[in-house]
């Protein structure tokens, strides 16, 4: 009688291990791929926002200043070169359920305006400025991105 029950118990334990393993894969997938799409502090969102704000600054005919603070507790390294904005996340204390090994630590986005070449280290918030200078050859738009 006892011998007949053993295969069932072993089977149930194996199924339990299988289910836990599969659930781990599922949670890993969700947090690695889906959470960054919606998290306001993820590098994908920050790079897209920064590139969009730099582009939008160019719409102003004269000068404009835009302040952008994506999230309170994450630092970012940012580089802007050749109309490509690259954002690196400096998450110093990774939280196991929000940053898993599969999460990308950097992302890039495109901007449409030139005259920017910036490297920013460890910034929480950003200031985008656009001004128009009048030279002998006409108007020249100058952009700057600073971090603090």
């Amino acid at each position: 009688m006892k011998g007949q029950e053993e295969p069932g118990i072993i089977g149930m334990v194996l199924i339990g291990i299988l289910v836990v393993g599969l659930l781990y894969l599922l949670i890993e997938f969700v947090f690695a791929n889906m959470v960054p799409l919606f998290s306001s502090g993820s590098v994908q969102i920050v790079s897209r926002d920064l590139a969009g704000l730099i582009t939008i600054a160019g719409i102003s005919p004269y000068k404009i200043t835009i302040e952008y603070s994506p999230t309170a507790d994450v630092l970012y390294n940012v580089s802007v070169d050749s109309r490509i904005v690259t954002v690196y996340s400096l998450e110093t204390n990774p939280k196991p359920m929000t940053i898993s090994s599969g999460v990308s630590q950097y992302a890039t986005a495109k901007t449409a305006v030139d005259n920017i070449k910036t490297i920013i280290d460890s910034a929480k918030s950003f200031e985008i400025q656009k001004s128009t200078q009048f030279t002998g050859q006409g108007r020249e738009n100058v952009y700057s991105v600073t971090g603090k």
Partner: protein
Amino acid sequence: MKGAEKVLNTFMLALIAIGGFVVVMLFFLNYYVQTNAVIKTSDVDRHAIALGNLYLSSDKLAYTLGKTLNRDVFSKEKLDKEMINQNNVLQYTKIFSDSPIFKDVSFPNSIVVLYVQDAESNDRWFLIGHGSLGQNGFNYFDYENCLMTKLKLDPQTIGRIFVYTTVFSGPFPLWDQYDFKECESSYNAQVGASLKDFPVAIRVSDSEVHEGYLVVWLREI
């Protein structure tokens, strides 16, 4: 017999667990793919809207008086100078020349068609160009050559240009969608496209301003 039944039951339970997992995984995968597609499409749409607004503020097209730039008001003089006037067939030679408009404002790895129409006089201008290219293994010059082969300079094409410029109006008179798609597929280009239009005023002279519109057609690679 009872032991064999339990093994079978356990096997069935394992199958149900795996089946359940596959269903849940497919649900998330489907959601993930759909969300990504929506984000990418909205990216191209947002870029096209931003581009249109940037061109409305561009001093290459907008009417300026001293230091004052009149956003949303295009100067006919500048349109004639910077863009190709569809009523002047000779200007078609400027089709692939680098335009300062796109050097100033364009997204990397993108192809842009600008089209301006004066709604009152029916004057039309267009321009095709690209932002900085070379990423993702896409070679614009191969793409351009491919498009050029579609634009054969034979009597049939010249006749087609003549018919388009005199009879039809539209932003893409020299190629149809199939020509673009054929060239893109031969270079394995991953393309998202968006077309947006914007109302604009066109300053014809000191005393004459017409209503018109700007169409921005953006293809991102």
